[in-house]
């Protein structure tokens, strides 16, 4: 019995030392980690804000695509658009997308965040160039969701990854519709 307690307490001792040291390290790194996270988000927001001011985040409940948005205001403070936090369905699973959309539903800017697409195919969408296919659409022309809506050159560029393309397109379409509806209210 004594033996057993001794063994238990020795393991406990090692654990204790480990836990305390880790707690100390954590005390140093945690603020730093949080800071980095925020920074990353800010960077992304800045990219999609197209020079406008970003308001306070609002969650959208019960929407499969639009998870929430930041209002976008111009200098005067009137709302000109939204930055949407979108979830699309790609080839490898969910696509996290941040998109700037005008109140009229026009796509202003798109950035692909977390995704599990295939490098070289779907992951090409992380490339800023890629999103040009969507920008400017949504208000007058529909957001493209399939190859046939693209020029030959653009269509060739997405060959082999049209599911990703459609996934982003559909998410943006939903965002655009959302913006139009909100804007109309």
């Amino acid at each position, binding site marked *: 019995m004594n033996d057993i307690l001794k*063994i*238990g307490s020795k393991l406990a001792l*090692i654990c204790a030392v480990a836990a305390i040291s880790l707690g100390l390290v954590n005390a140093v790194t945690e603020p730093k980690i949080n800071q980095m996270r925020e920074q990353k988000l800010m960077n992304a927001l800045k990219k999609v804000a197209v020079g406008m001011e970003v308001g306070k985040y609002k969650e959208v409940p019960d929407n499969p695509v639009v998870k929430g948005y930041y209002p976008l205001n111009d200098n005067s403070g009137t709302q000109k658009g939204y930055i949407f936090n979108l979830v699309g369905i790609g080839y490898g699973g969910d696509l996290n997308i941040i998109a700037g959309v005008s109140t009229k539903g026009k796509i202003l800017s798109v950035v692909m965040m977390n995704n599990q697409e295939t490098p070289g195919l779907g992951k090409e969408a992380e490339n800023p160039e890629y999103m040009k296919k969507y920008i400017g659409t949504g208000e007058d022309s529909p957001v493209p969701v399939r190859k046939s809506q693209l020029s030959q050159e653009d269509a060739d560029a997405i060959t082999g990854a049209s599911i990703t393309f459609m996934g982003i397109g559909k998410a943006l379409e939903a965002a655009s519709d959302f913006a139009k509806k909100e804007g109309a209210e």
Partner: protein
Amino acid sequence: MLLKILFSFLSVTLLGGLLGVGLAVAAKLLAVKKDERIGDVESILPGANCGACGYPGCSGYAEAIVNEGASLTLCSPGGAEVAEKVAEIMGQSVEVSDVKMVAQVHCRGTRDTSKYTFDYNGLADCNAMMILYSGDKECKYGCLQGGSCIAVCPVDAIGRDEENRIWVDKDKCISCGKCIDVCPTHVMKWVPYDADYIVACNSKDKGAKTRKYCTVGCIACKICEKKSGDGGFVVEDFLAHIDYDMKGDRTAAVESCPAKCIISTKTAKAEIDEVKETVKVNDEN
């Protein structure tokens, strides 16, 4: 922050302590007795798993030594050294002769030097060739060159040269005896590791007959017997044998052998290096 460290400390320590106690209890309740000597013996055995001891691999032998009191000298690759170490663990003493024996092929007959009686078509395996008229060589004692020994050697000590002759690299041979077991013509035989020469013929036919079918066969002329002087060579059953206990000089005998069938064991390694069998190929005629 301090609170967090405190929580960490408490939870992990508690978890550790609990599990530690739990495991200790479990170990006590579920303890299984096991003879530790098995592991010790196994770690001393060479791990070649060659089967020379007659047990399934080294671990099998280790178990047999500890549980069944198997003889300690069965491991030929390990030799005297291992046997002594094992004996130490087992608290016994052993006596082993430390003359290392290796396998050697006692035949150099090739398509050029020996007569063949028919065209053989079939498995490249000596025991299979044996089924059909004991092989295609007219000499029924020689190496069939089917390479069964190559296939069974656990350490790839056997190879063939360009003329299809089989050679054993005595430095690689671990004396497991598998090739000797498998060889159907018994042309693979034990030779002391430090033997300098072997009589590379196995024909027990009369000299005149041997001469008819093979130009490198022993014709039992007894010249070697005479030249060696100290009895280092004995001709028996129309075949010369070397008495490896005699340490006299054999070069005179070797040089005067008319069939040139007494060969140096040193050449064996040189020739084996030329062609190595990587894949056993049984197809394509």
